[in-house]
């Protein structure tokens, strides 16, 4: 398995930043854990506007909103053994999560999402009670299933890959049910809907969005903090990557980011961030 290293570069100060710790919370009541985080994943608690950067291992609670940018992904492991993989440019809120290991039949999970892509893989909870996903135009019920939910420019597409069933109920009424693997329901922004079997090439397209890069590749993401500092985050999967390769990649991905070039010059001379 490759090393996973991260170099955070503050372009304004040309210094290496260490990200702050996610606010400590009571581990005993965690609903899940961040099982994988790549790039800039922000967590916003209910009633707060301040975003906190999510780290692998951070506990996840109800009433939290998770936001990813264009180069970020996250995987949530819930305590009932279900999992949610959140793709790039996504926004997902965990409104409610109740699970009692001693009596899984009384549990409930309610999510809200308005953009992006996520995959739900069912655990104990969804076998008994459908997981509810609220969207701006419909409510989705996922019962004991592996399902993808994608927000596109034209609407929402829900694809069922395994399990009991997925129901899609538009706000205007009329529920569509899918229970055959590989079938989807698409709700268009104009109110129309369609369903059918997903083309195999599209399966590859959506599934690959929820995977990491192959060894030897780099992903770069940038974000702006509340203080106005631009943070450039570089994920390295290849421990043998040299700085020249890094620079080449950065030139490709952020060619107009002049500060990056200066940072790299400094890195090259100081050999900063080469450790595992």
């Amino acid at each position, binding site marked *: 398995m490759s090393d996973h290293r991260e170099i955070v570069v503050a372009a304004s100060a040309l210094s290496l930043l260490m990200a702050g710790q996610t606010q400590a919370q009571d581990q005993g009541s965690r609903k899940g854990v961040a099982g994988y985080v790549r790039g800039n994943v922000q967590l916003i608690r209910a009633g707060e506007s301040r975003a906190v950067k999510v780290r692998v291992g951070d506990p996840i609670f109800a009433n939290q909103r998770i936001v990813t940018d264009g180069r970020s992904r996250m995987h949530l*492991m819930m305590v009932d053994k279900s999992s949610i*993989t959140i793709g790039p440019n996504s926004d997902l809120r965990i409104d409610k999560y109740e699970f009692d290991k001693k009596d899984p039949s009384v549990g409930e999970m309610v999510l809200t999402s308005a953009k992006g892509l996520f995959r739900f893989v069912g655990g104990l909870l969804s076998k008994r009670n459908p997981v509810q996903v609220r969207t701006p135009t419909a409510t989705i019920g996922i019962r004991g299933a*592996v399902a993808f939910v994608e927000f596109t420019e034209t609407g929402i597409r829900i694809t069922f*890959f*395994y399990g009991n*069933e997925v129901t899609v109920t538009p706000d205007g009424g009329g529920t569509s049910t899918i*229970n055959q693997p590989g079938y989807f329901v698409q709700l268009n922004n104009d109110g129309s809907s369609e369903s059918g079997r997903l083309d195999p090439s599209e399966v590859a397209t959506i599934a690959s969005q929820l995977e990491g890069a*192959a060894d030897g590749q780099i992903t770069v993401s940038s974000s702006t903090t509340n203080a106005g500092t631009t943070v450039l985050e570089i994920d390295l999967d290849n421990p043998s990557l040299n700085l020249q390769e890094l620079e080449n990649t950065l030139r490709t991905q952020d060619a107009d980011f002049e500060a990056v070039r200066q940072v790299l010059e400094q890195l090259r001379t100081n050999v900063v961030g080469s450790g595992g």
Partner: protein
Amino acid sequence: MNANKSGHRLLKRCALITLLTLGFAMPGHGQSVAEFDAAYEAMLDNPEDLEAIVRFAEIATRIGEYEVAVGALERLLLYSSDLPEIRADLGFLYFRLGSFELARYHLVEALNSGRLPPDLELRTARLIDGADDNVARHSFIGRLNVGLRFQTNANSAPSNDRVLAGGVVVQLNDANQEQQDYDLYAVASGLYRYDLQTQNGAAIEVPMSLVVDRFADQETLHNLTISLNPGVRFEPDPVDAKGITLFPHLLSRVVERGDELLSTSLGVGLGLRYAARDDLFAQGLFRHRRIDFRNSGLRPNASDRDGYTNLLSGSVRYRLMDSLFLRGAAHLVQREADRDFNSSFEWGGSLRLIKSHSSDWLGLGTGQFRSYLHAGLRDVRFSAPDPGVDQNTKRNDHEYTLGLGSTLSLNRQWSVSLEGSATNVTSNIRNFVRDNLSVSLSATYRF
């Protein structure tokens, strides 16, 4: 009588082996669940321990929790998408779940990496074929099996050369005594499937088969059988009874024996299949069929057997261990013929242990080696005495079979099999007491 006792002893031994195997194969479920929970907690506590992910996925797979195993392995692919063996495992899991689209995606990616070990590569390629068949709207899967067989009693003649005819003991002529023979056979079978794309999984299915069997000496045993059984398979309750399918179908069959038409039959059937998990597969079948026999020079009184048959059968295949399966089957057959002495009631059952193992030791590096041990029992009771044999005795036969065989996969399409079986039939009428030993070597091509 001695043969009868030895047959019973044989079956008892097989049953004992089976029970012992089951005993070894079924660890305490509670212990497994506790291990499963502990492995998940370990992942929650240390999400970046990649070994813990693999360990959890292994335990989840072992206890049949494929869905959560999928969740764990998908997480590994977030760390790196360049993990062909993990992808192959993920593909196998999705295949087991019946999610053929995702199975295909991961299996193709794994195969295209070119870095899978040879046996895994072959298995992956075969599962891709299987996934393709399930994803396509039209599909046809077929196999052609061609083999050479040797039998010590090819003509099913009685072991005793003195038999009853009209209640009188007569000496059989040489031609009607046991004849050993070789036969060359070919079995072509196929399944055409058309997906109706409904949310109850409905599909038109047309199973078909052609059997051609030519004997070296016993030309009257030449056999040609053609059958076609079209129907519609569907899930009666795709939500709450996932994995259960029904298959109402029509039956048609033509049989030629000794190059003369023997019988034609038409009927209806209802199949039931439960295949929600790959460690447990069960099926049941009811068939009602009208059979008409054709009188010929070889069989002048064949039409005495015209009538109806009702068949009720069931089988269960269970995964005892990772590569060891047990298959149990039972059947009942009622035959109502125009002549009572041709009417009968039959029951039977069989057990088969199937073991898969790697063929690496052969140096072929091409895949799996599958062996089986089979034991079967059949009891047939006729409704009335046959006056042509013994007008005072209703015939009652017991048949015992013991077989074993191995199949070696050579590549994605070809495999070779070596099989042997011993059959012993005891009967209350000496005419029907017989034995047979059979050995066959065959090659199979899948397409």
